[in-house]
C-alpha cells in the first residue's frame, strides 16, 4: 500500500495543541510545503521541537511569526528575532536545550530508551531541577526522552513504502524524529516505485514513516 497522501490530508493530521517535531537545520532539510499549508490552515497552541527557529521569513520561523506555538523546545533562536521577542514578552515559552542533548532525547523517545546520560549542561542552567547519575565515578545529567504527536520531516527521495534517501546536510534531525512521533509525515522532492531505491542507499527505513507528501522545494 502506498503511503502517499495529499497535502490536505497531511495537514489535517495536525491538531490544535499537538506537539510537533520539525526536521531541518536553519530550514535546510525542512518540509517547506507542509509548513506553508499549516500556516494557511492556522493550527494553534502547538509545542515545537526543532533544532532552531530558523529565520522569521523561512522554514519553521514562519510558523513562529504566525504565532502558532505556545511552547518551543530548541537549541538556538538567535537567527529569528521574533522568537526572542515572544519569549521576552511572555507570549511563548522557550526551553533552550543543547543540540546534542536534543537529538539524543528525540532518539531516546523513538528507540524505547528511558533517557540518556550526558555531561553536557552540567553546572549550567540546563541542569537545574534535573537528576544526576553517577556511573563508575563519573557524574552525568539524566535527560529524558521526547516524543511528539506528529513529526513533519523532509527527504530528498522516498519510495512508496517510505524508504528515504538524503543529499547534503539535510539529514540533521529528520532521521530520528519519525521514530519519536505517533504520526510521521515526510515531504519529499521525488516519489519512486518500490524497488527503485537500492536497499544499500536507504538512510531511513520506511518503518518509521507513516505518510508521504510531494513537495520538497527549498
Amino acid at each position, binding site marked *: 500500500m502506498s503511503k502517499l497522501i495529499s497535502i490536505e490530508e497531511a495537514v489535517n493530521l495536525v491538531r490544535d495543541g499537538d506537539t510537533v517535531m520539525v526536521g531541518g*537545520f*536553519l*530550514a*535546510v*532539510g525542512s518540509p517547506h510545503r507542509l509548513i506553508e499549508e499549516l500556516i494557511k490552515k492556522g493550527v494553534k497552541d502547538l509545542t515545537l521541537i526543532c*533544532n*532552531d527557529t530558523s*529565520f522569521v521569513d523561512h522554514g519553521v520561523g514562519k510558523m513562529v511569526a504566525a504565532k502558532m506555538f505556545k511552547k518551543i523546545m*530548541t*537549541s*538556538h*533562536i*538567535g*537567527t529569528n528575532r521574533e522568537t*526572542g521577542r515572544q*519569549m*521576552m514578552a511572555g507570549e511563548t515559552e*522557550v526551553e*533552550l536545550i*543543547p*543540540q*546534542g*542533548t536534543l*537529538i*539524543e532525547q528525540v*532518539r531516546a523517545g523513538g528507540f524505547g530508551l528511558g533517557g540518556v546520560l*550526558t*555531561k*553536557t*549542561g*552540567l*553546572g*549550567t*542552567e*540546563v541542569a537545574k531541577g534535573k537528576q544526576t547519575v553517577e556511573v563508575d565515578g563519573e557524574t552525568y545529567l539524566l535527560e529524558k526522552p521526547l516524543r511528539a504527536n506528529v513529526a513533519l520531516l523532509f527527504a530528498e527521495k522516498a519510495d512508496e513504502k517510505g524508504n528515504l534517501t*538524503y*543529499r*547534503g*546536510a*539535510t*539529514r*540533521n*534531525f*529528520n*532521521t*530520528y524524529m519519525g521514530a519519536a512521533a505517533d504520526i510521521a509525515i515526510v515531504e519529499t522532492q521525488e516519489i519512486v516505485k518500490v524497488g527503485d531505491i537500492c536497499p544499500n542507499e536507504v*538512510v531511513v527505513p520506511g518503518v518509521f514513516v507513516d505518510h508521504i507528501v510531494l513537495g520538497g522545494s*527549498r
Partner: protein
Amino acid sequence: MMDKQKIQEFIAKRVALELRDGDLVNLGIGLPTLVANFVPEDRNIHFQSENGFIGLGPSPHEDAIDPHIVNAGGMPVTINPGGSFFDSAMSFGIIRGGHVNTTVLGALQVAENGDIANYMIPGKLVPGMGGAMDLLNGAKKVIVAMEHTNKGAHKLLKECTLPLTAMKAVDLIITEMGVIEVTPEGFVLIEQNPEYSIDEIKAATGANLIISDALKLMM
C-alpha cells in the same frame, strides 16, 4: 592600533598555528570561522560542520551554490573530496564522544578555572547554546578566540558572572594581546603581542595573570 577586522584576522592566524596535521576541528560562528583561511599549507585539517558533515570546504561561487550544503551558520559552503554527510545524532556522537581534536569558540567571559559563558546575557541577548555546550564538553582541546576585552570591559575574570556554557572547559585563550593558557594555577600568559606592554595586558585582564618564564612574542 589594528582595526576590528585586522584584530580578528590576527587572532585567527594565531589560532590556525595550533591545529595539527590530520586534526578534526570544529569552528564556531564569527571570528573562529576565519581560522580556516589561515591554516598552514603543510597541514591537512578536517573541519566538521555540526549540522552534518566532515570536510567543510570554502564558499562556492554564486552559480555553484547547493542549497543543501550550508555551514552551521546557514551560509553556503562546499564539501571537500573525502568528506562525509551524516545526521545530528552521528554529528554529536562525534563531538561528545571525544572525536573532535580541537574546537575554536568565541566567549563573552572566561574564568581563571576555565569556566566559560558564551550563550546568553539574561534579559538582553538569548540566542541559545546551539552545539556549544556539547563541543565544550566533548572536544579534546578548547580554544577561545576573542578580543581581549569588550570595549574595555573585562572578559577574562576570576569568576564568570553570566550563565555558564560549561565548567572548567577552556584550555587556551587567544586574543589580540596574547596567548593565555588556563592552568590549575590560573591564567598564564605564554605569548605576548609586542604591540602591548605586560602592564597593559594585565590591566585588560580581570584576574591574576601569571607571566610564563618561557614567555614568547606572538607569531
